[in-house]
């Protein structure tokens, strides 16, 4: 086809010209801004390919300058004359331009300003210059085309070169013939990125690909989108807990296993998918194993559903045989040869006796590399260590070494790092310098770093193990499996031949287990069982798992769920259980949410529940930093860690809502990982929506209409935020930077400001902040935060009650000798575990005195009783969120609660002696009350309160069940779930109960005592004639403990006792204040009478006489003395008030 006639081909005046000084009479300066802007006006308007002022425009001018220089050099080129060549016989070749001009090699043309309408200002420009400019523009555009096409071609070459490329057809063909296909290939074969694309190309449009980790969903969706050339389209998306890029146009979605399970929960037949890819099945995650079981059952019902299991070449036959001998397509990995060097660590005299890892064997490897390989030969080092403590031990030593040699940049890599710090491992080291990445097993499969040539394998891994007996999580160090060792080794051979140094002997390797223990065999199964119940997959004991969990941990989980009230006695889901199953959190935290919403404490409980469900926001490095500690102190609450987290979150929200508030800086100064706070905000919102969905929380109030001005203002702000977000996204992903040698010596993560400033491409936009403000209604959050900080003492006490009940039975009792111990040596005992300690971040670790019973009022007994049985009305227990054993068993996230009252309200088993002065809670904590009468009153009061609390909770849950049934029907929105007055009365009485002051002693029973606790079944049953002592319940003899079962938790008079057998027969004269009865009565008989006295006032909040209700002061427990330097005054302020006050002075 003939070239279209455009101006390019018309005149010869715009042929290349030797630019020379004498040619231009007037000085022409391309660098003059006015000149440039004239041309920009002419060529770079809004509808043009390049726009004035854009980045592209700048790039063009840079290109222009280069081109000018280049042409200057080539001015001597002669024009080639091609005299008298015969015309070519092929027409296409016949009319080729005789005279060569590089412009003929460009397949596009730019219209000049004169051809584009008269309004263009370019007409006045000198034609010579215009053509010079156009020519440059042409080359620029051509260059851009070549570049982009080059990338496209490279992409395709790389894809075609992947080992899996040869197998694409085979996978598709096998999938056509079978319902399940196993694709096995080692890391680097390309299965995770390519298989979805093969499916796309084959025309599948409803593909889901599960990943064990959220981060993998995002990165894979990005990569696959990029490779399938729809980086900026929507056919490839991801969906994780708080984020989704999925739209109607999405054909392939990457999602977490947990999310897919929830989709199955909603629609058991998964109608929305044609093909399901389950990636990384070999990792044997709990949920993945469960998903496989669910799929195996689903497949016969969905014959059209295809499943691809993707695995490393580990134990493939297990998966294949589980799915009826599904065909396996095995893809060889692309690995270069790797030399294995066994360098067992010899037992050498360690520098210190501490448990710290000796870094010297690792340093020796660095040295060996320096000695053996010239620095010009690139190749980085990846070191596998068991945990964060080990990483910091080696980090310190390696950085010292690196600062001497200047040949290494040392970087840590573990999951507790911020995303920005994790990303650093992908940056490149300057020439002559190697990266040394110290990593946990996160780099074994989940994070792939290019350019690794050397691997050091410590052979160790720290894994969470679970002790179902103690409900204790243990982070223990183990030898890795052979499969892991091979994975680690393989990391050295991805880009070229590599070396793997194994710091253990070959005989050790031979002794390793072939595969790692699957998660299902080493973690608590509560949430799994709950999920199984809610998906009605039948009895968990008979569920066809790929490898069944240990029966004992299954039983523990079932018992635990029954104890928590999530399952009933026939192991069916209770209403609370089915609600808990939908909350993506630990059962105890779910319970807190439900309880909190009942007491109208939803807002604070939402925050606390969210805070307890994410990793601690306190950075490790800041622990030793005094400045951070001091800055954090005003946020600490002596009630317990959840309240500290609560303060942190609320104050952070306040900082965010201030104009120009720099929350990033605020966090850094306090050693807080802001990312965790964002997670909290997201989680909080999700919890809130769940509670609203279930009718436990009144739906979002329609926003105050506000005046039109503020509405406009809001809309404008949102638009601005969207704009920022878009700009950020268009700025593209973070580019790799070159690491600085010095940078890392400062400690890795301290340079966030510099880093982000560099990344933000000039504009220092905190994109997390922008996203946060778009996702959340900051005003609402702020309102919640400020109301939270104005919590009254009562609300705080109720909140603690809610937490305590939610966390029960996770209790620890202080050791009686703590008073004489150092702050850091405080010891606590749980029922199953003695000698636990506080986590160093715990507020009680720095101020343990708030736990000690203060006023020793009296000593119980004489002589035989020792100091431990101190009488006090202020004994306290710790309730904790988790028990984690690393080098010591640590209590994590503790709250202090009053001992007696909490035990009376929460215990699942309360046993008493004859006069109720001795109580044993759950068979391990003994309480001795000085005053029998007070004891019985309290006990009776607790019974009533528990019954009322239970029924209020039942109503609440019944309401939510009803609410779900008739969502659409017009429901009285005003009607609160539970009668407001009732709840208010209950809260009031609970508070009075909690405040009651009864002196008692608290003691953990010894093992022997616990064994010989009960009198046992009695042959002579003499039912005490104490009508109404414990309400209306009839007493029946307890079959095993002896005594009488009063309720399902209270057993009366079943404790063996060494005290006077006749004590309960001692009667004294007493006059009833109500009916005037006057006779000798034992204390129990007296109370029994009072409870049943016909003349007694009905609504008597019994048991609360002793209580001295706290004055209803509006002061907050969060207040701290504050001295304002500006106005030289002292105040009592909450952290928010401090901020507010300070703002006055600005």
């Amino acid at each position, binding site marked *: 086809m003939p*070239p279209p006639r455009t101006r390019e081909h018309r005149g010869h005046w715009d042929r290349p010209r030797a630019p020379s000084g004498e040619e231009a009479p007037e000085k022409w300066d391309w660098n003059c801004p006015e000149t440039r802007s004239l041309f920009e006006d002419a060529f770079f308007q809004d509808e043009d390919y390049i726009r004035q002022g854009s980045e592209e425009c700048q790039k063009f001018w840079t290109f222009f300058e280069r081109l000018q220089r280049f042409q200057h050099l080539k001015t001597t080129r002669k024009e080639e004359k091609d005299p008298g060549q015969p015309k070519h016989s092929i027409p296409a070749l016949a009319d080729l*331009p005789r005279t060569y001009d*590089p412009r003929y090699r460009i397949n596009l043309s730019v219209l000049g300003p004169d051809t584009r309408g008269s309004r263009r200002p370019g007409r006045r420009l000198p034609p010579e210059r215009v053509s010079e400019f156009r020519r440059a523009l042409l080359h620029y*555009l051509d260059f851009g085309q070549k570049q982009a096409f080059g990338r*496209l071609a490279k992409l*395709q070459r790389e894809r075609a070169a992947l080992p899996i*490329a040869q197998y694409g057809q085979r996978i598709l063909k096998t999938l056509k013939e079978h319902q399940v296909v196993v694709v096995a290939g080692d890391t680097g074969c390309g299965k995770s990125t390519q298989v979805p694309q093969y499916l796309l190309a084959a025309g599948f449009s409803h593909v889901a690909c599960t990943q064990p980790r959220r981060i993998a969903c995002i990165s894979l969706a990005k990569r696959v989108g990029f490779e399938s050339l729809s980086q900026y*389209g929507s056919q490839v998306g991801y969906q994780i807990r708080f984020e989704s890029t999925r739209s109607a146009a999405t054909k392939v979605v990457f999602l977490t296993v947990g999310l897919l399970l929830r989709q199955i929960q909603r629609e058991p037949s998964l109608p929305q998918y044609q093909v399901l890819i389950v990636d990384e099945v070999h990792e044997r995650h709990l949920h993945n194993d469960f998903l496989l079981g669910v799929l195996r059952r689903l497949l016969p019902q969905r014959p059209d559903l295809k499943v691809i299991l993707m695995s490393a070449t580990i134990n493939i036959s297990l998966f294949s045989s589980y799915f009826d001998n599904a065909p396996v397509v095995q893809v060889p990995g692309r690995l270069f040869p790797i030399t294995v060097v066994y360098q067992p660590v010899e037992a050498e005299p360690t520098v210190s006796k501490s448990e710290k890892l000796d870094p010297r064997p690792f340093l020796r490897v660095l040295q060996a590399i320096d000695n053996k390989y010239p620095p010009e030969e690139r190749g980085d080092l990846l070191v596998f260590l068991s945990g964060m403590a080990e990483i910091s031990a080696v980090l310190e030593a390696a950085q010292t070494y690196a600062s001497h040699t200047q040949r290494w940049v040392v970087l840590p890599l573990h999951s507790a790092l911020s995303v920005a710090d994790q990303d650093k491992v992908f940056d490149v080291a300057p020439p002559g310098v190697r990266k040394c990445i110290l990593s946990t097993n996160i780099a074994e499969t989940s994070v792939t770093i290019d350019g690794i040539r050397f691997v050091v394998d410590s052979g160790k891994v720290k894994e969470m193990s679970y002790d179902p007996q103690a409900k204790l999580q243990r982070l223990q160090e183990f030898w890795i499996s052979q499969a892991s060792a091979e994975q680690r080794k393989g990391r050295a051979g991805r880009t070229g031949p590599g070396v793997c140094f194994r710091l253990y002997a070959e005989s050790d390797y031979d002794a390793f287990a072939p595969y790692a223990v699957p998660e299902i065999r080493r973690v608590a199964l509560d949430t799994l069982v709950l999920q199984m119940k809610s998906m009605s997959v039948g009895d968990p004991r008979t569920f066809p798992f790929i490898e069944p969990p240990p029966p004992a941990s299954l039983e523990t989980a079932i018992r635990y769920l029954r104890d928590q009230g999530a399952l009933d006695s026939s192991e069916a889901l209770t209403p609370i259980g089915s609600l808990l199953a939908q909350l993506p959190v630990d059962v105890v935290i779910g319970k807190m949410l439900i309880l909190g919403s009942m007491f109208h404490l939803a807002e604070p409980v939402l925050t606390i529940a969210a805070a307890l469900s994410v990793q601690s926001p306190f950075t490790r490095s800041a622990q030793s930093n005094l400045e951070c500690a001091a800055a954090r102190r005003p946020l600490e609450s002596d009630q317990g860690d959840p309240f500290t987290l609560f303060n942190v979150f609320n104050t952070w929200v306040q900082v965010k809502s201030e104009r120009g508030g720099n929350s990033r800086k605020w966090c850094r100064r306090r050693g807080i990982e802001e990312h965790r706070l964002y997670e909290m905000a997201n989680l909080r919102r999700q919890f809130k929506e769940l509670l609203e969905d279930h009718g436990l929380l009144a739906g979002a109030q329609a926003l105050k209409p506000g005046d039109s001005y503020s509405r406009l203002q809001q809309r404008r702000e949102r638009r601005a935020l969207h704009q920022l977000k878009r700009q950020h996204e268009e700025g593209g992903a973070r580019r790799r930077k070159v690491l600085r040698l010095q940078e890392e010596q400062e400690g890795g993560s301290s340079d966030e400001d510099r880093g982000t400033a560099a990344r933000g491409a000039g504009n220092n936009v905190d994109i997390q902040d922008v996203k946060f403000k778009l996702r959340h209604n900051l005003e609402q959050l702020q309102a919640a935060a400020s109301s939270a900080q104005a919590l009254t003492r009562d609300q705080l006490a109720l909140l603690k009650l809610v937490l305590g009940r939610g966390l029960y039975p996770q209790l620890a009792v202080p050791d009686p000798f703590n008073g004489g111990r150092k702050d850091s040596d405080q010891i606590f005992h749980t029922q199953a575990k003695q000698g636990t300690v506080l986590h160093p971040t715990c507020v009680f670790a720095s101020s343990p005195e708030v736990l000690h019973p203060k006023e020793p009022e009296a000593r119980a007994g004489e002589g035989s009783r020792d100091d431990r049985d101190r009488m006090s009305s202020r004994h306290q227990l710790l309730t904790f969120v988790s028990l984690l054993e690393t080098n010591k068993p640590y209590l994590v996230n503790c709250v202090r609660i009053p001992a007696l009252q909490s035990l009376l309200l929460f215990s699942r088993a309360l046993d008493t002696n004859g006069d109720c002065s001795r109580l044993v809670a759950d068979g391990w904590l003994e309480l001795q009350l000085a005053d029998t009468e007070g004891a019985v009153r309290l006990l009776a009061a607790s019974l009533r309160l528990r019954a009322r609390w239970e029924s209020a909770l039942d109503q609440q849950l019944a309401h939510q069940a009803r609410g779900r049934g008739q969502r659409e029907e017009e429901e009285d929105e005003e009607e609160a779930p539970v009668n407001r007055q009732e709840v208010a009365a209950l809260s009031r009485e609970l508070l009075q109960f909690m405040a009651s002051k009864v002196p008692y002693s608290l003691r953990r029973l010894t093992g022997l005592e616990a064994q010989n606790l009960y009198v046992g079944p009695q042959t002579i049953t003499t039912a005490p004639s104490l009508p109404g002592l414990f309400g209306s319940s009839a007493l029946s003899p307890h079959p095993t403990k002896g005594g009488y079962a009063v309720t399902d938790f209270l057993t009366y008079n079943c404790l063996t006792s060494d005290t006077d057998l006749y004590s309960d027969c001692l009667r004294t004269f007493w006059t009833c204040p109500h009916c005037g009865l006057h006779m000798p009565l034992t204390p129990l008989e007296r109370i029994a009478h009072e409870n049943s006295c016909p003349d007694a006032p009905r609504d008597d909040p019994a048991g609360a006489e002793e209580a001295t209700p706290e004055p209803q002061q509006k002061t907050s427990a969060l207040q701290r003395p504050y001295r304002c330097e500006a106005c030289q005054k002292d105040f009592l302020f909450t952290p928010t008030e401090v901020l507010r006050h300070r703002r006055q002075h600005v």
Partner: protein
Amino acid sequence: MAHEAEHQPLGVFECQLCSLTAPYSYVGQKPPNTQSIILLEESFVTKDPFTPDKDRFLVLGSRCSVCSRLVCVGPECSLFYSKRFCLPCVQENVHAFPQEIRHDLEKRKVPWKRPASQPSTQA
């Protein structure tokens, strides 16, 4: 979004020499959303996948003006000299081209060869 609809792929472009494949969304000389640029050959065009800017296009390839083979614009497959020529045709008629182009071809050590790793026909 309105723009996205315009970029709906019409089909899949495949180079008959190197098997490069990519979906194309336009064939012609005036790529959508651009007013000032004209293509000098009937081209298979896609939206530039490497930029979020929806107006950016990328020319994938066109037909050889001698043999009408559909070829990509990659330098291993074709060249443009006022028209598109696939490299085999250029080789055959190398004397019809100016010296500069002949030089260029010689500089390419492997004048024309299919890429070593012949990808299978899958996408």
